[in-house]
């Protein structure tokens, strides 16, 4: 049930009305029921995995806190991490691991032929497993207290606006919110609706329209020339942002309508002037998670290695961040490419600082910004093309099979589509920039005249109705 579907609209309307009709003391119960229905709507058995994860971590959280001496604390914490990671590895990576084991044996002329296991990836598992890992970490580090109300803890992990694709919300930010009763309040409902509308615009007008062209090219790289691939790469960069930030806006909007404030995942990523800067602006709840729970502990552990300790920690962090997206060498390599960029930036900081003092600021910033976005787009080739060979072929084509002829690009974009994509993208990037500067879409819109606000609503609603592409496309991040 995706957010931009009729089923979801009906589902949410019912939940919304009931939520404000029942006693606020029971709201968490309704959220659990609604979330269970939402999860079971795709594959009913998915709920079982989630229930096991909830019960297990509810117990470990309390036990880590209670345990004495510290050695026992550590044992329970380690056990919880091992179990949580094993669950994720089993559902997400088992066949990838088996495939590679088989391959390794075959290179030694041994035949392992371990058969693949048929497993479905449970809805949202990459997101909720990360949330329970950090939950146990925070209790182990004595930064947070464990949650003792099982219902509240379950609602934290199940909360349907964020179950499928995040944001990866920290327990310390979510749990206090579920403890306060929610009354119907226009100050929540209106900003929520605005965000949902805005997210819908990004998804159906921009992302899904671009998807038609990028799917053509990236599903059959061999049949396209370098220029087509280059344009498709640029378009895919915009598509991914429109798709995932559109999803996130809708998730935040839905949560807000129910009285919750979730963490935004984006802060003008295309204004970044380095890849390190980029990762503070792109998929923020994932990048801050890997910073706090992988990078910082590893770099602390290896601080004796000085700067090589940092590079080592960066490598582990980005490889895991890459692999988090899926079980394939492409995603791992995507992580390696980002390790290389961030390590380069870290090791050449002094040298680059000297350059920045010589070159006029505006020029230096513009060049850095262009290089950052271009490099990110380049890494997305490995993110989007399914096979490693396919990704390499795409890159070879950009360099060695390049023709400036515009005929036969084969992107399937009509002039009308091109205009909608360009205008839509400009509106999206401008508005997101203002939104972040002002501290929120509702604050930005409240500062405008009533006429402007209504014009904006009409523009968005009519664009969605007239130019929206409906029906076929799931959100990209649903597969992770």
């Amino acid at each position, binding site marked *: 049930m995706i957010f931009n579907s009729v089923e979801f609209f009906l589902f949410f309307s019912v939940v919304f009305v009931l939520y404000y009709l029942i006693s606020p003391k029971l709201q968490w119960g309704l959220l659990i029921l609604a979330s269970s229905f939402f999860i079971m709507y795709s594959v009913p058995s998915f709920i079982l995995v989630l229930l096991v994860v909830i019960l297990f971590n509810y117990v470990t959280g309390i036990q880590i806190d209670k345990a004495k001496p510290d050695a026992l604390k550590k044992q329970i914490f380690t056990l919880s991490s091992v179990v949580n990671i094993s669950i994720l590895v089993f559902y997400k990576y088992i066949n990838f691991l088996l495939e590679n084991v088989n391959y390794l044996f075959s290179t030694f002329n041994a035949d392992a032929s371990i058969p693949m296991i048929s497993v479905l990836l449970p809805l949202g598992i990459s997101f909720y497993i990360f949330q329970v890992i950090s939950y146990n970490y925070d209790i*182990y*580090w*004595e*930064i947070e207290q464990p949650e003792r109300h099982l219902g509240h803890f379950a609602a934290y992990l199940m909360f349907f606006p964020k179950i499928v694709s995040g944001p990866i919300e920290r327990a310390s930010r979510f749990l206090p919110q579920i403890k306060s009763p929610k009354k119907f309040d226009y100050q929540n409902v209106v900003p929520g609706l605005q965000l949902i509308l805005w997210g819908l615009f990004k998804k159906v007008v921009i992302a899904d329209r671009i998807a038609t062209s990028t799917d053509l090219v990236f599903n059959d790289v061999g049949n396209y020339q370098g220029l087509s691939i280059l344009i498709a790469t640029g378009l895919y960069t915009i598509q991914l942002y429109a798709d995932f930030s559109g999803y996130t806006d809708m998730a935040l909007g839905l949560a807000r309508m129910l009285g919750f404030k979730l963490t935004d995942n984006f802060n003008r990523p295309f204004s970044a002037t380095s890849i*390190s800067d980029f990762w503070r602006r792109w998929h923020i709840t994932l990048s801050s998670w890997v*910073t706090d729970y992988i*990078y*910082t*502990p590893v*770099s*602390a*552990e290896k*601080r*004796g290695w*000085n*700067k090589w*300790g*940092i590079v080592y*920690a960066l490598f582990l962090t980005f490889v895991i961040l890459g692999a988090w997206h899926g079980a394939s060498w492409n995603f791992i390599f995507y992580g390696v490419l980002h390790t290389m960029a961030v390590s380069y930036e*870290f090791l050449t900081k*002094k040298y680059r600082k000297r350059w920045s003092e010589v070159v006029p600021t505006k020029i230096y910033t513009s060049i850095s910004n262009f290089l950052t976005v271009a490099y990110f787009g380049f890494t997305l080739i490995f993110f989007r093309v399914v096979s490693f060979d396919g990704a390499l072929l795409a890159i070879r084509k950009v360099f060695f099979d390049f023709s400036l002829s515009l005929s036969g690009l084969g992107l399937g974009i009509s002039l009308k589509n091109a205009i909608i994509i360009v205008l839509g993208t400009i509106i999206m990037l401008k508005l997101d920039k203002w939104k972040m500067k002002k501290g929120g879409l509702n604050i930005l819109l409240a500062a405008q005249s009533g006429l402007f606000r209504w014009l904006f609503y009409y523009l968005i609603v009519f664009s969605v109705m007239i130019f929206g592409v409906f029906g076929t496309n799931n959100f990209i991040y649903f597969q992770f």
Partner: protein
Amino acid sequence: MDINEILKELNILYRRVLENDSVSLSLETTANDVDGWDSLNHMRIISEIEKQFDVKFALKEIMRLKNIGDVCDLIHKKLA
């Protein structure tokens, strides 16, 4: 060594490691307030502190540091 002396020494150390003479620390200062004190430089600073004050921090202690006040308290506790 009292907290104020530790703070003074830390200020000199931060200026040296971050190569930034405008750093001015108070007990409430956090990483967000200091230019260049990011996650990439954080562990360099921590290991410089350990060398200078001849102390050793546990991972748990490092993870709990929220501001300069926490850093001073931790050093103070280790030296006591």
